[in-house]
């Protein structure tokens, strides 16, 4: 189309770029030097050219099939790894929350005094059970985090035994129970949560890497488009050589690549786009909610400590504020589920402010009373409402990520097979369609 190129004398064109493109070699040869037997030579040249052109068409189709297939398969694999990775990230967060809930229940029960209330004991047991199951799950497909997870498993056993020691001593009225509880809590906060943060980062990086597999869609697109372009070029050259307008085989092969373009490359592209959208619109908000729930669970334990450290809880209150502010910020960033959860979080913070007001006003007993009550409208109930709502949101988000990213993966896989089939068939048709032309020059 760019015709205003200087009308050079035909020869000495720079070598053509691109591998299987029809080579200009024969023409160059024609002008290069006077040939002894031009006509015989010409026929031989033309035969080579036709063979080369049909080879080019066939190889282009084969490459479109192969690269398209591999690209879309890579993409599909990436999507399913992304879905698994997202699950793992959320599982790590769930484990973090389970640990914090167990610790929160244990410390809060300590605050109550006397025999541990049954419902708090049950809450602790339930959280520990969840944590153990999650550790086992995480260890099953552990990679570079295997050692950390093994360590967490051991720590979890140590933690429960420390809490048991605290309990046994508490029941006998021995203050050393508090020392054991302190050790247990320290283990969670200074060892286990730190390790879990590392595991979380690894899982999030793995998931992020898998999401990047959407980029393979570009290969599918490039392979199919280049294949189709080559086919068109071959037809144009062949038409010029043979003075036949259309070659049925090549036309069909081109149509097949168009099919591969629509049903393969475009589907693969859309799948990649969809997965990227899910990542920003569902995965990230879900992570944000899960994280705010984790921060709130941590703050909940800190709330108990502000009271346990009777009068010396100021540093814990500072941390409480830090954690809950971070949680609120995360929720504010996500408009969709955020608003409702923000309101629930705010309810709890109002209750917490009341506890602090009582304690700071010197009425520690009343503050504890308010902190441990399970009455509706109390801070504990408000926290539970937030935690429950966050759980539901996270579970829904996780399911949606899995379904949609999994769906994108299936689409990519279908695209892979369709591209492969269309490309292979195209190769066969192109080769056979040009057979007659090759015969002519033999």
């Amino acid at each position, binding site marked *: 189309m760019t015709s205003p190129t200087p009308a050079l004398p035909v020869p000495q064109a720079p070598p053509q770029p691109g591998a299987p493109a029809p080579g200009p070699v024969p023409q160059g040869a024609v002008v290069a030097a006077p040939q002894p037997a031009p006509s015989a030579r010409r026929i031989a040249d033309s035969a080579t050219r036709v063979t080369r052109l049909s080879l080019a068409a066939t190889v282009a189709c084969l490459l479109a099939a192969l690269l398209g297939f591999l690209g879309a398969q890579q993409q599909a694999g990436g999507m399913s790894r992304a879905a698994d990775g997202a699950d793992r990230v959320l599982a790590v967060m769930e484990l973090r929350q389970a640990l914090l809930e167990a610790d929160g229940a244990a410390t809060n029960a300590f605050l109550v005094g*006397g025999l541990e209330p049954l419902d708090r004991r049950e809450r602790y047991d339930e959280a520990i059970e969840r944590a153990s199951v999650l550790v086992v799950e995480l260890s099953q497909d552990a990679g570079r985090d295997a050692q950390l997870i093994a360590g967490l498993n051991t720590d979890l056993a140590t933690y429960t035994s420390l809490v048991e020691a605290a309990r046994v001593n508490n029941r006998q009225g021995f*203050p050393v129970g508090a020392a054991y509880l*302190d050790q247990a809590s320290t283990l969670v906060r200074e060892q286990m949560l730190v390790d879990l943060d590392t595991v979380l980062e690894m899982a999030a990086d793995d*998931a992020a890497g898998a999401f990047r597999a959407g980029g393979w869609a570009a290969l599918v697109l490039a392979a199919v488009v280049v294949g189709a372009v080559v086919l068109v070029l071959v037809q144009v050259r062949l038409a010029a050589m043979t003075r036949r307008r259309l070659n049925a085989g090549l036309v069909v092969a081109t149509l097949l690549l168009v099919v591969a373009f629509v049903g393969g490359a475009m589907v693969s592209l859309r799948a*990649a786009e969809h997965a990227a959208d899910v990542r920003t619109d569902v995965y990230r908000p879900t992570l944000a909610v899960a994280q705010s729930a984790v921060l709130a669970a941590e703050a909940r334990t800190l709330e108990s400590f502000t009271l346990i450290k009777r*009068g*010396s809880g100021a540093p814990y209150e500072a941390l409480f504020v830090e954690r809950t502010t971070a949680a609120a910020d995360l929720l504010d*960033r996500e408009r969709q589920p955020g608003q409702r959860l923000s309101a629930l979080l705010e309810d709890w913070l109002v209750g917490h402010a009341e506890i602090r007001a009582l304690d700071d006003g010197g009425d520690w007993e009343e503050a504890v009373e308010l902190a441990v009550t399970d009455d509706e409208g109390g801070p504990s109930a408000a926290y539970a409402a937030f935690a429950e709502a966050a759980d539901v949101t996270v579970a829904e988000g996780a399911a949606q990520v899995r379904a949609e990213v999994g769906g994108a993966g299936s689409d990519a896989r279908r695209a892979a097979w369709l591209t492969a089939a269309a490309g292979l068939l195209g190769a066969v048709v192109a080769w056979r369609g040009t057979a007659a032309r090759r015969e002519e020059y033999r």
Partner: protein
Amino acid sequence: MSRRPLRSRLALALTTVALATGLVACSTGSGADDLGLAAAPSEEPTEEPTSGPTAPPVECDDALASYEPFETQPAPDELPAGSTMAEIRERGALVVGVSGDTLLMSARNPETGVIEGFDIDILREISRAIFDDPDRLQLRVITSAQRLEVLESGEVDLVARTFTITCTRWESIAFSAEYLHAGQKVLVAEGSPAQGLEDLAGQRVCAPQATTTLSRLEEYPVEAVAAPTHSQCLALFQQGRVDAITGDDTILAGFAAQDPYAVVVGEAISDEPYGIGVPAENVDMVRFVNGVLEELVADGTWQELYETWLGVLGPAPEPPTPVYGREP
């Protein structure tokens, strides 16, 4: 058709592909981006000052000398106007720094959640002297290491927390007259042949941070292990992570009461005169507290409290004789 336009066409096609490739929804970003991580690293409160061995002890001859009580101890409703006591009464609560886990002296009863012990009862008597009501205490649980700082900052009115009177501490705060005499001993596992620190060469001996107890360990050939609180020492002892605990006999008695396999051995290696800590500038408060302590001894309340809480140490000794003569 010449080669040129063909080549251009191919080039154009390739450009298109390249453009499309650029437009492909290639989902970028790291794991940290997904997690929205920009938050500050979490830090736990360091509730203990990480001070090493403190400055060399200040020497003086009259560590035990406190300020003389008023000639006549003022009654709760006749507290001198403008005095520290009147201010406290005005405020409605006596703010005190105490231990939460020193059994017998001041520990939270896990059954009731109430902090109780010898130190607490002494403080209740001071509350009675100010408010005519023993229950006007506002307790702040502090660690041994926090005792000086809460007095220096004026956060509390008094500290009663197995607080040994020393010349060094007199530099920054004031003390009441001695109200209980303790001595440092050693707690070991039952059946241990050790009879004192000198028999524990090379073994791990636990003591709480920033206490006279810990600094005294330097004089013995033992491996000193510092714990945040004394109760943590007992937990470490029960876990086999230390071989012995050293501390005042009053505190160790509380440990032995919690662990049937622990015994307190030997003679006291030190004198630990306990006083009630008061902010240095509140001389009137010191005088007032000394007046209360004298009354407790005079009317037999002191002996009663000793027997109630520290009877395990043997029959009540003579109460310490107060020494005065310090001038502000």
